[in-house]
């Protein structure tokens, strides 16, 4: 029982990181129908920024996690520059396919830039939260785990409020639902798209903080698998749908953590914990067979 509770918390922890990253994918997809493959690498950018800014913060006598503010700034700049210099010109001239290929090449570009700047060996990140484990129902849960879950949920609630209740959020929804009508009601479409990229990149920086609090290292390719799984989460929940990304992220986290703990026991050692990623992708395939648009997605018929 205590193992189960432990695994649920682990799942929620990893899941809230996935959820934040998935939100970045889904918001950009919702607004310009582009799968931003470079999004996972924004996390890597955030992690390297933390790597160098945490010591600065600590030396200045501030708490280490304050470094995330600089992380957000750097990620937002990278995200917006990628949108303005790479995606926007391609969107004007090319097709969805050219945009997708540009996204893949931006991902490779960021990874290789990081490798040439920082080398391919992982760089350690110093402690972000120095917390005591906390006892919940007789189970000892790491402080980082709880903080990660709390930040994740706080960010998700804030984002939901911003998207549904504010003028900026309304502009974003307007552009995503009908770009022509958005222009006619006075929404500055380009500015709204840039803003969406900025928000997505800021979420990636927060995800980097949460991820590095638990796995304290930065490497050039760290965004690859993390980004891929978050993308799975976004598709699982229904890409383009904000609550879908949150749900998908948490589900992927829980499945991954539970399959790591129990698959070997349940299958008599055939499926070991090393297969946990495979289990996640299997579930994606099954869900998409039953609900092609994702759990919360609506099956839209192509309009002719």
């Amino acid at each position, binding site marked *: 029982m205590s193992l189960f509770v432990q695994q649920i918390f682990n799942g929620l922890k990893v899941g809230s990181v996935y959820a934040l990253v998935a939100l970045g994918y889904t918001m950009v997809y919702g607004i310009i129908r582009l799968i931003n493959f470079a999004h996972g690498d924004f996390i890597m950018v955030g992690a390297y920024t933390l790597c160098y800014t945490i010591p600065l913060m600590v030396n200045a006598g501030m708490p280490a996690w304050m470094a995330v503010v600089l992380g957000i700034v750097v990620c937002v700049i990278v995200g917006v520059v990628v949108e303005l210099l790479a995606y926007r010109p391609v969107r004007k001239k090319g097709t969805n396919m050219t945009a997708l290929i540009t996204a893949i090449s931006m991902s490779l570009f960021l990874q290789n830039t990081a490798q040439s700047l920082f080398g391919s060996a992982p760089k350690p990140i110093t402690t972000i939260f120095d917390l005591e484990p906390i006892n919940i129902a007789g189970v000892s849960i790491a402080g980082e785990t709880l903080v990660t879950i709390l930040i994740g949920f706080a960010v998700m609630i804030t984002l939901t409020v911003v998207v549904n209740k504010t003028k900026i959020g309304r502009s974003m929804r*307007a552009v995503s*639902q009908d770009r*022509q*009508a958005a*222009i*006619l*009601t*006075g929404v500055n*479409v380009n500015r709204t798209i840039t803003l969406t990229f900025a928000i997505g990149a800021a979420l990636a920086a927060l995800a980097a903080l949460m991820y590095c609090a638990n796995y304290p290292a930065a490497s050039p390719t760290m965004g690859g698998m993390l980004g891929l799984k978050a993308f799975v989460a976004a598709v699982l929940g229904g890409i383009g749908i904000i609550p879908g990304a949150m749900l998908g992220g948490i589900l992927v986290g829980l499945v991954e953590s539970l399959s790591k703990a129990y698959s070997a026991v349940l299958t008599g050692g055939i499926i070991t914990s090393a297969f946990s990623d495979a289990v996640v992708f299997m579930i994606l395939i099954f869900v998409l067979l039953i609900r092609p648009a994702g759990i919360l997605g609506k099956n839209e018929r192509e309009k002719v």
Partner: protein
Amino acid sequence: MLKITDLNVSYGAIHAIKDVSLEVNDGELVTLIGANGAGKTTILHAITGLLAPKSGKIEYDGHDLIKTPNHKIVSLGMAHVPEGRHIFPNMTVAENLVMGAHMRKIDKQTLKDEMEEVYEHFPRLRERTKQLAGTLSGGEQQMLAMGRAIMSDPKILLLDEPSMGLSPLLVKEILSIIKIFHEKGITILLVEQNAKMALSIADRAYVLEVGRISMSGTAKELMDDDRVKKAYLGL
């Protein structure tokens, strides 16, 4: 108020609009009629900057609309109700109306009062304020699109095929609303395939044939014109 001079629009190799000039004066209700594919919608899209013309001039209230960023045009007092309504399907009826006033700096009470006014014109919308706009019927969506446009407090309203796909009863209802808006002092440019309906309420009219203005005059003159009668009124 709105003056188009020698407008040319091309889609790739297709020369869709050829040297079109037309004018809408303050307080007028002008209609642009023509068959399907004549280019009526293209002209409206050029006016509100949804596409870039090849050449020509579009002046409105002292502004050069071709040089104005398209999202700023609504703030100049020009509202465009596009063909196919283009309401925001996953927003509620009320949110769609709020979007209509997106660019205006008004307080909550004014916004509420003006929404109330829209509901008075379209009582059916009031019953559905919390409903997602995508679930409305075609007629209700048309009303919502018009209501959203009115929320921008326009001086001129561009209406693209408001009667399309509606029952004769609803067409009548939409028609009477257009008249009410006009009487309130809003200048109107009405694009219609339903020439009979359009000419019945317009002051002046232009006939568009394959991208060119072929006839123009008062609505009365055109209604009595033999060619118009034969081609557009089915008489």
